């Protein structure tokens, strides 16, 4: 199995408005050859519209779609080398599995023999060997999904578009199909755009994520970037839980790579790896619940530690979850692998220590 050379796709300043509503407000992004990029965001953020613009089903109000250096913005879907797997799969109910997969090839006037060989290959690729003669309505949801994938791959698209392809499957199958799509994509090295509203799905399948919110790109980056170095408050809160803590930069010590931030609960010293942070900045610390450590309260002050009271606790085996209150503020703390270690009860006084490598967001000064 081989595909044509993967492509480089470029979106340039894409705007889309429906009437007076601006759905996309200037989207620019580059997708590398062979990369799997996910458009992710809450519903209504414009991710499906953006995908449809790439596929040619919707035209952008302004902006360009460039594929391998060629402007394809005004081409209809059938003249673009992008192929879509639809949310509803959109399989032809009056054709067999093999006819569905071979539909595009037939339109390309491939000889029948070659179509058959190619369809067999594709069915093998998606693990549907021997089901070519089945009619579509006699397939399970997961099988239909595979047929849709095979059909889109048949024409060796330069870019494969997947519109929430897993949303019609039940939870277990979603995970299986997610891994399978990723495997096939990596094997064929086909440039792929994947749309989902599920953050965890996006994190686990993507090379990079493009997070959309209110028609604007919030951040483009690898799953690690998104989680560990979120660009803003929205991104920080988008994947996983986060505790925010406000503060002001007291001093920056370039010599020992430290930054001092004062908060309403005291001063903390963090690693200085963000060069844009300067003295006097108002900042927001992004504190992940699992990075914080809890210890018994012993009265003495130590670095990066606050004193608080356990508000509630929940024990789930692999994880003990605490809510700790400081003054008016609450912080959620996850203690993974709590087996054998000290547990804290409700109303117990505790010491909370935040790590030096906490990510810091710079706040705009109003």
């Amino acid at each position, binding site marked *: *199995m*081989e595909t*044509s050379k993967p492509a480089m796709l470029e979106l340039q300043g894409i705007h889309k408005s429906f009437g007076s509503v601006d759905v996309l407000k200037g989207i620019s992004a580059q997708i590398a050859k062979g990369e799997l990029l996910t458009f992710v965001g809450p519903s209504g953020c414009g991710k499906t519209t953006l995908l449809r613009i790439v*596929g*040619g*089903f919707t035209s952008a109000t302004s902006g360009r779609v460039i594929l391998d250096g*060629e402007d*394809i913005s005004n*081409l*209809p*879907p*059938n*003249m*673009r*080398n*992008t*192929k*879509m797997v*639809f*949310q*509803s*799969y*959109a*399989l*032809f*109910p*009056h054709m067999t599995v093999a006819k569905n997969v071979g*539909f*595009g090839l037939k*339109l*390309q006037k*491939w000889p029948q023999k*070659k179509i058959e060989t*190619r369809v067999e290959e594709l069915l093998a690729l998606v693990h549907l060997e021997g089901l070519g003669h089945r009619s579509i309505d006699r397939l399970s949801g997961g099988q239909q999904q595979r047929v849709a994938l095979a*059909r*889109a791959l*048949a*024409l*060796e698209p330069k870019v494969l578009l997947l519109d929430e392809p897993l949303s019609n499957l039940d939870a277990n199958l979603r995970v299986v199909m997610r891994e399978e799509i990723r495997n096939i994509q990596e094997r064929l090295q086909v440039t792929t755009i994947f749309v989902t509203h599920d953050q965890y799905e996006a994190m686990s399948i993507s090379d990079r994520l493009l997070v959309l919110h209110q028609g604007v790109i919030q951040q483009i980056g690898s799953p690690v970037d998104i989680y560990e170095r979120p660009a803003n408050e929205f991104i920080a809160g988008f994947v996983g839980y986060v505790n925010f803590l406000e503060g002001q930069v007291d001093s920056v010590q370039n010599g020992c790579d430290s930054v001092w931030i004062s908060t309403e609960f005291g001063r903390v010293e963090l690693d200085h790896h963000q060069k844009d942070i300067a003295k006097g900045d108002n900042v927001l610390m992004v504190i992940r619940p699992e990075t914080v450590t809890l210890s018994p309260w012993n009265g003495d002050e130590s670095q990066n530690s606050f004193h608080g009271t356990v508000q509630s606790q929940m024990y789930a085996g692999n994880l003990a979850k605490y809510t700790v209150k400081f003054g008016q503020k609450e912080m959620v703390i996850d203690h993974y692998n709590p087996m054998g270690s000290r547990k804290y009860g409700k109303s117990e006084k505790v010491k909370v220590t935040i790590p030096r490598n906490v990510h810091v967001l710079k706040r705009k000064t109003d």
Partner: protein
Amino acid sequence: MAELVMGSIVRKNWWYRLRAFINANLINLFAGGLFALLAVFLLYPIASVLVFSLWGDQGFTLDFYAEFFKYEFYYWSFLNTLILGLATMIILLVVGFCFAYLTTRGPLWIRKPLKMIALLPLAAPPYIFSISLITLFGKNGMINNLLHLNFNIYSWTGVIAAQVLAFLPLSYMMIENVLNAVNPSLEESASDMGASEFRIMRSITIPLAAPGLLKAALLVFVMTIAEFGNPAILGGRTPFLAPDTYLMITGEADFNMASVLSVVLIAPCILIFILHNFVLAGKGYTTIVGKPTATELRPIDPAIKLPFLIVCIPVTILVLLSFGVIVFGSFVKIVGVDNTFVIDHMLNTQSNLAIWNSFKVSLGAGLFGAVVGTLLAYVIMRGKFPGRHLMEMLALSGFALPGTVIGVGYIIAFNRPPFLLTGTIWIIILNCVFRFLAVGVEAGISKLHQISVEIEEASADLGADFLTVFFKVILPIMFSAFVAGFIYTFMTTMMSLSSVIFLVAPGFDLASVYIFLTAQLGELGVASATTVKVIAIVAVSMALLKVIAKKTGLDVQKQGV
């Protein structure tokens, strides 16, 4: 595989751009063409009727309407029509309810046979009951002779009886739907609280069904006042609007007065249409409840069952007897007088020629109607042009308008250039296509509702242009709707009388017209024999529709109601 790497689809020459343009705009071209067809073959004839009722030799005038209100003959024909509609409606409300109640709540063994009886008249044209009632109760009628009665069938009683029998299926199907939608658990819980059967029916079933019953009654009213055959054959000297319109054209060639009568006939139809769609729209509790859950059979008190059965039994006998005497009458010399077996009526050349003509016309109307209906459904569902709703309303209006009105409209509109069609077979075919368009359109729309737009996008994505998508994907998927539309149009054209009777050229008989004329002349043998043949063709068509309904879940006979 290397040699199979496909060529670039992205080609930029002008031919591809032109083709892309055509593909992008074809649906609008279709829409334009269909609008033109609807305008010429529906709007134009109906507008012509309106114009002719207001336009004399000296231009605009209200004289014709003045004449209508001046002469007793005219306005009584209007009042009689309303009385006939009202009487039929009330009787059918009761009879239909009795049948529907017993088939939805009665003892199991009685449900199927009763339902079959109630639906049996569907297999025959409505005017069959005039012929059978004449055979039974006419001057030499079998029952009149047998019981030495002197009953006159050419009377109000006769017309009403024929109408009740002819429209029993319509009223039954609508009321059955309504009763089916009343959740049985409501009745059960009432019963649980100690309510008597009579109490349940009075305070649960009927109140819940009332809005649906009202809608059913209104539809029966509209359909009966538009009926031509029964009042024309059995009306005797009593004037009714539909037959009088016909007489106005054939007897006096008075197109203006015929137009006035047509407008007068449409008026109550439009009134009820408005009532139906705007006042009653959304009223009714039954639709919310949804499908009834299968429950244990609740035994019904005989005190309830018995009166219902007493209503159903004579109707059942009449329906069965009607079909019986039609078959009997086709094989005896002179029914009721000389009951010796003959095959002459069945072999009658004129009758067979009329059947053959009808067959040809119906085939043409069916094919053309299915094509137009499928295209219309597609354009209405997938088009993005303004006026789609207007288009849908126009397409469906042919079904709601009285046949005589469309007949008059066609004869006025198409006996002069630019559309000179009078006397040709085409005027009949076109008339039937556009009168019966609604069912094919509805079938196509309901089929398209099942198909996600994504299917069309997917085909485009895979490299198909609009034409390819249309022929390779849309049409195959819509094929069942196409076939159902074809058979339905074929079948209704085969039976239709009220509008085609205006359009047949002398010497060119259609089966329905031939039956009508022979029945009027009292030639019951040929009339019966021709009817039997029509029934046979219709029965085969209905069986085919049943097969389609079973295979694809597309039931146009339900939609026809």
